[in-house]
């Protein structure tokens, strides 16, 4: 019952928001935030409860048994949660609320905006809890539509191009996924769409069929991650999206890809996985180095952060390639969570600056450190977290990924990927220096005011979480370890 | 028998020649009468040589004669009309349906 509540509360909330009168903007904003707090609290309670009772076993918790939805197609409404989806739920809940708080800077058509946002949240929650391919695909598509509108209507100058590109790109991917789902549906003898059964069934498929399905799924999720060749939609989508939307895009939507790989792609097709793991690692490393290098040459703050997330997600791919080491898998989960927190916060901070200075050009700023002390301190903290400074979640994730990947993959490849750490530091510090250090141009930026209460309310929880996960990640690892060990066994069967 | 038929054939072709070449409509009608007569000869010849039992051939030619007469009457009435309207009954000028 809890998982369904997670999905349907936002939808009910959307309806409530739609019914509110258009003029009372603040009323709409506060109700939207209020509504999104409920799933957040539910997801937090869920995480705590899962940690306490269920983290021992790898089985699915809070199963909402397969209630038949479309009997003729054997499609049923089947929800379930385990070690890898609980943290993602918590992350989604938290970040949706924070994004809604951040979207106070949206000035026109608040009603539609919040309605779309809540629908988006429902879609995201759905993807993380769905255990039936049909349901998964439905939520996967539900998530796309509001995102398209959010970017397309409230975005920056070239919003239409970015929105269409984003939408078509992901849709292109999801078509491959649909084909793969159908293949699985028809090859399974009682024609089932239940993911858990299909995971066993996947192993029995012939090698070529496994390869085909694996690659099809991989294309769909790689576009979402984004993996190197499919990433060009990300910078456009981020630069054109409003702050709150690009926060949710970076923090949660990118994780859809990696989560789905861990949930569907990897366990279902072990033989294909074993033979393709080197190539996935190679794509990951290219992603890391490529993302870092390109962000070195960026002039726009948001594009820099976008390409940095390409680099960070490259780490995820690298670790995903090391499928038979629990450390690497834990590293992936950590990287997803930490990247969500850190990049989400970075986008918020860029948003804060953009609201005041109305430009994101790095060259335009200089020496803000003197004028905005608190903002600089937070920005310093998040930049350091982004480049993987110990004491922050970024480092823990990267370290686990390196250890895991080093033990499984080709050691020279991992050696190169470690280079990404230095490049990461390079572009982050270059940005930090150009924006915050150096002499302050009082004439141009004299009017800037330091970060205010509302913005602090958004960023501080993320900062606290980053530090907490960074300093003492043990509870999070204990929460996942059982599921991950089970996953690793399935994957290397 | 052969003689009768061949003679009728020649007469028929003469009639045919007349119909096709005569410029005067009345000439055409006259040649037409010839053709009718050729046919009658044939019929009577068949009646005599092939099927002497019944007089079908003769009767049939009798009817042909009557019909021919009726036809001639109507044809000439038309000719009179033609003449009255166009004062000329050479059939080349009567080509109103020309393309």
């Amino acid at each position, binding site marked *: 019952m809890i998982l369904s509540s997670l999905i349907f509360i936002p939808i009910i909330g959307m309806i409530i928001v739609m019914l509110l009168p258009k003029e009372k903007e603040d009323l709409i904003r506060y109700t939207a935030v209020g509504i999104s707090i409920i799933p957040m609290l539910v997801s937090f309670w869920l995480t705590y409860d899962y940690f306490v009772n269920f983290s021992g076993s790898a089985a699915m918790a809070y199963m909402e048994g397969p209630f038949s939805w479309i009997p003729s197609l054997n499609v049923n409404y089947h929800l379930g949660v385990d070690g890898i989806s609980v943290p993602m739920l918590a992350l989604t809940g938290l970040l949706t609320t924070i994004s809604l708080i951040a979207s106070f800077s949206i000035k026109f058509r608040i009603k539609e905006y919040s309605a779309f946002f809540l629908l988006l949240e429902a879609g995201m929650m759905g993807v993380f809890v769905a255990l039936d391919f049909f349901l998964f695909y439905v939520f996967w598509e539900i998530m796309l539509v509001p995102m398209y509108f959010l970017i397309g209507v409230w975005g920056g100058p070239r919003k239409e191009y970015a929105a269409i590109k984003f939408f078509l790109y992901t849709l292109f991917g999801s078509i491959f996924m649909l084909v793969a789902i159908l293949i699985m549906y028809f090859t399974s003898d009682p024609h089932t769409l239940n993911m858990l059964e299909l995971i066993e069934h996947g192993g029995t498929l012939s090698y070529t069929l496994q390869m085909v399905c694996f690659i099809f799924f991989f294309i769909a999720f790689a576009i979402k991650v984004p993996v190197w060749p499919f990433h060009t939609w990300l910078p456009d989508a981020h630069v054109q999206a409003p702050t709150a939307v690009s926060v949710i895009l970076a923090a949660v939507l990118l994780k859809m890809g990696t989560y789905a790989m861990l949930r569907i792609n990897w366990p279902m097709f072990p033989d294909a996985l074993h033979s393709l793991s080197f190539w996935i690692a190679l794509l990951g490393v290219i992603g890391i180095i490529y993302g870092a290098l390109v962000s070195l040459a960026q002039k726009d703050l948001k594009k820099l952060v976008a390409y940095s997330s390409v680099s960070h997600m490259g780490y995820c791919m690298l670790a995903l390639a090391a499928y038979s080491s629990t450390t690497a898998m834990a590293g992936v989960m950590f990287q997803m969570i930490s990247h969500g927190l850190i990049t989400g916060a970075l986008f918020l901070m860029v948003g804060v600056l953009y609201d005041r200075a109305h430009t994101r050009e790095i060259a335009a700023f200089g020496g803000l450190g003197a004028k905005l002390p608190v903002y600089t301190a937070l920005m310093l903290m998040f930049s350091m977290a982004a480049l993987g400074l110990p004491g922050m979640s970024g480092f823990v994730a990267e370290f686990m990924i390196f250890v895991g990947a080093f033990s499984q993959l080709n050691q020279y490849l991992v050696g190169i990927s470690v280079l990404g750490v230095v490049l990461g530091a390079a572009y982050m510090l270059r940005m930090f220096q150009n924006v915050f250090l150096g002499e302050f141009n009082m004439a141009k930026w004299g009017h800037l005011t330091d970060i205010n209460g509302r913005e602090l309310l958004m960023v501080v929880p993320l900062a606290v979480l980053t530090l907490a996960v960074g300093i003492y990640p043990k509870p999070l690892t204990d929460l996942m370890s059982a599921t991950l060990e089970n996953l690793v066994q399935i994957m290397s069967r | 028998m052969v003689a009768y038929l061949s003679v009728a054939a020649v007469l028929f072709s*003469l009639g045919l*020649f007349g119909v096709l070449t005569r410029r005067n409509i009345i000439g055409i009608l006259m040649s037409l009468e010839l053709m009718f007569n050729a046919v009658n000869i044939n019929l009577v010849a068949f009646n005599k040589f092939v099927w002497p039992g019944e007089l079908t051939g003769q009767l049939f030619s*009798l009817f042909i004669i009557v019909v021919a007469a009726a036809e001639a009457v109507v044809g000439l009435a038309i000719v009179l009309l033609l003449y009255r309207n166009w004062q000329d009954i050479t059939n080349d000028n009567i080509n109103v349906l020309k393309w």
Partner: protein
Amino acid sequence: MEFFDKIIELIVAAPGIIFTELSTRPVFWLLSMMMLVSGFLVVTLKNIFHSAIYLILCLFSVAGLFILLQAEFLAAAQVLIYVGAVAILMIFAIMLSTNVSGNKRMTTQNGLPVSIISAVFALGTISFIIMTKLNVVIKNPEGVITKGLWIGSKGELPLDNIMLIGKYIMTEYMLPFEVVSVLLLASMIGAIALARKERS
């Protein structure tokens, strides 16, 4: 190809056949020659009045042939209807319509192709008659239809021709007889309606 061989064979035997033929039935050939010549003249004479006169001659010869073929009533009817009525009608029509004395050349037009066609037609039928010898369907009294070669029987018609015709008209051919009479009536009325002087 055997078609050409037969023609050659016929041409070779032609003089013999002609001589025997002429000698056996002089009257027939006389009448037919008269008929053919007058027919030829009807068709070719420039002056329409002359051709009308030759038409009458030709019709008389045809009546003669009918008599040869023992169809006396038919000959009489022929003479009566054709010569008596139709030819005269033609002459009336000519008188009414064409300025006979005019020097218009009533020549035929494009005679050559037409003559070729009619010649071909005549030759065709004659050769056909001679060669195929008409596989005639003979129905003997018992009603059995036998398909056999035409035997050119001499066959005698019953003498009382007129009586038989009367019988047949009244019994077997009652319907056609009546229809024809209606037809005649209709054509008369039609002709009168057509040729009436239109009132202004």
